[in-house]
């Protein structure tokens, strides 16, 4: 299963609310909410396909300015899944 570490930049007032919504999503773990509106999260899914579906959804959330990728590990994937 691929794993990615991401940073969401949110408008300052919406970060906490967004973090609560993220916690409800399958495959997303919130690791921290920073005072400046940034959220650190870890995303995992069965495939990279699944990861991107999650991240694309996050990008469209109200209050999310951007989603950026810090770390991506996909070594357990078989070649066909790549």
């Amino acid at each position: 299963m691929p794993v990615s570490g991401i940073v969401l930049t949110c408008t300052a007032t919406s970060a906490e609310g967004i973090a609560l919504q993220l916690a409800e999503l399958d495959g997303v773990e919130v690791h921290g909410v920073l005072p400046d509106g940034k959220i650190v999260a870890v995303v995992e899914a069965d495939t990279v396909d699944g990861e991107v579906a999650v991240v694309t959804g996050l990008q469209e959330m109200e209050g999310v300015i951007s989603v950026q990728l810090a770390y991506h590990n996909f070594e357990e994937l078989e070649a066909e899944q790549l």
Partner: protein
Amino acid sequence: MGLTRRDFIKASAAAAAFAAVGVPVVRPKGVDAAETGITWGKAPCRYCGVGCSVLVGVKGGKIVSTKGDPAGPVNKGLNCIKGYFLSKALYGKDRLTKPLIRKGNKMVEASWDEALNLIASKYGKAIAEHGPDSVAMYGSGQWTVQEGYAASKLMKGGIGTNNLEPNARLCMASAVVAFMNTFGSDEPMGCYDDLDLGDTYILWGANMAEAHPVLFSRLIDNKLKHPKVRLIDIATRRTRTTKMADEYIAMRPQGDLAALNAIIHVILRDKLYDGAFIKQHVSFKRGKENAPYGLKDKEAFNETPADVKNLSFDEYKELMKKFTPQWGEKISGIPAKKIEELALVYTDKSRKVNSLWTMGVNQHSRGVWVNNLIYNLHLLTGKICKPGENPLSLTGQPSACGTAREVGTFAHRLPSDMVVMNEAHRKKTAGIWGIDPNKIPAKVGLHTMEMFRAIDRNELKCIWIQCTNPFQSLPNLSRLRKAAEARKAFIVVSDIYPTRSTELADVILPSASWVEKEGVFGNTERRTQQWFKMIDAPGQAKEDVWQLIEFAKRMGLGHLFPYSEKGLHREIWEEYRKFTIGSGKDLAPYEAYTKVRGLRWPVKPDGKETRWRYTEADDPYVKKGEGIKFYKAPGNKVNVWFRPYEPPAESPDKDYPFWFCTGRLLEHWHTGTMTGRVPELKRAVSGATIELHPEDAKRLGIRNRDQVRITSRRGSIVLPAEINGRSTPEKGNVFTTFFDETKLINELCIDAFDPLSKEPDFKKCAVKVKKA
């Protein structure tokens, strides 16, 4: 219960994300063990011109992990969503792995020897029968510096033709011409630091949030930290960028030419300019006007020194009197009051003002003029060459700057700002290349549009395309594809996947990509970044520079490439570097780049980089006490050009009532050959759509996702409608993307181009729209 290896990988992912936002974390014991066996190497990202640094993790000969590089000053540990696809773009199932030769309608596997011998025999025959100008090469702003350099030396110094072009003609050529005719040297004075240090950012037709997401994030970080920061989005379409802007100003297509002139009018009228700066640094010029649009084959237009008139400041002011804010409003649609306000923003002494632009300005039938007018604003107000206060032309390809522009793979250029028309430049080049100066022709080669039209005219017999997809990306595409389908020229395409261009090839060569080879890219902010080969290319795929040199050997030109196999990339670099020393674009020895995350040229004798060109504080070419010195411009004076309004080549009318504009999306890059391969990307944004304004859609009875037929004078296409989606064009405008290989959108685009830069206008033509 103990922690699993997976837990440690997740801890590692979180730690990397925390580190990127500046929160120190202690990596738990076991994290390092979880990453055992992974070897990490640095590389600039393969996709856009921003030049983010990536750490690539390799295990067992495969890429297994990527990280935003914490040591990378551009992106500081974070990549955009395209980072998910970096490695996957190399592992698509349909990767090209063997040379293929056309036999009738079939492509048949061949050995490298057979393929290269065939290419050499076709090129040799064409040159013998029709001369060297009957052959060409079409390369890329995605070529490494070494690939572009080898191509230039081969074509210009070996074969003896200037028929060498990069696809950057389609994206950066207007920016280049304006840098040259304003400052006497290509590429910006400022750098990305200006995104952190300024407080006012005016975007001219640029959807930076999607096209340059990492830079936009830097800008937004600055804004979130500093309440003074203001972002003004002037555009024809509301986008993700608009959502973050303090102000959105709607503008009609081509309206930039009028709005900029009207803003300058106000600055002159109200004496808001910086007189001392102007006196010391500026000359006023008027160029050739009533220019054509390049729609006729071989339509010649040049602005020679004889066509340029020197103006006094008073004469310039007089000429600008007619461009009132009311006149500006009439043409641009921007209210006169707003034009007055923008003049006050640009001249506010308490504000550090930056202009940002990209394809909206460059892919423009008067793109050079718009670039010139933006520079005029900064030169008249002296808001230039200062930390946090500069104009910045954003680029789209990873080495449009490093390769296409600095190496000079255009039909008129030689390395380091030199041109083929200049005898001294040809002599200097020939000296470094060890050839007779007469070998390099003084005649400018075919620019991109003429190169492909020349196939249709049966004038060009052979063309080799590397690392780009012109038979999807060129405008007025049908004519050019039909000529190729009629086999009017012998076409070679080197690429990593099948594309709409390989399907028209006589020979397809499988290339190595990104970290399957060693290379150097140069980004938007003059940053030169090197990487080493980390994995093997699949099958028999070979890097483009190898392909070029093997071809050269078969053309009897092997002596031009006397490099060792092991030291190839380093030795090419050191030879190329000779061009840059003393040119103001000085590059460092290869070794230096292997250790750092890039250096911004000119690199100083002590090995340090330059952040702000032309400034005493930072640029080694400016002496103490000189302040700002535009040392590459004649007499150290830069040009403020008088550039009037001229209409686009085609405007909406009764029959074709809508403006048609094309562009990019966050999730896809260019023609999609590297992002379209990735299934999930296609799923997120499955195919091209046509964006309409909701009122236009309602009037035409079109609902979201309805199939819509869009027709121009050149072609017709059906796309699903997108209404109130991520972006919304202004009324009377429709927008689509060009990544979708199943829809040849560019068949609709007009092949009008800027008369000075020869860059096509992909942003403006007329179409009709109806429910399919």
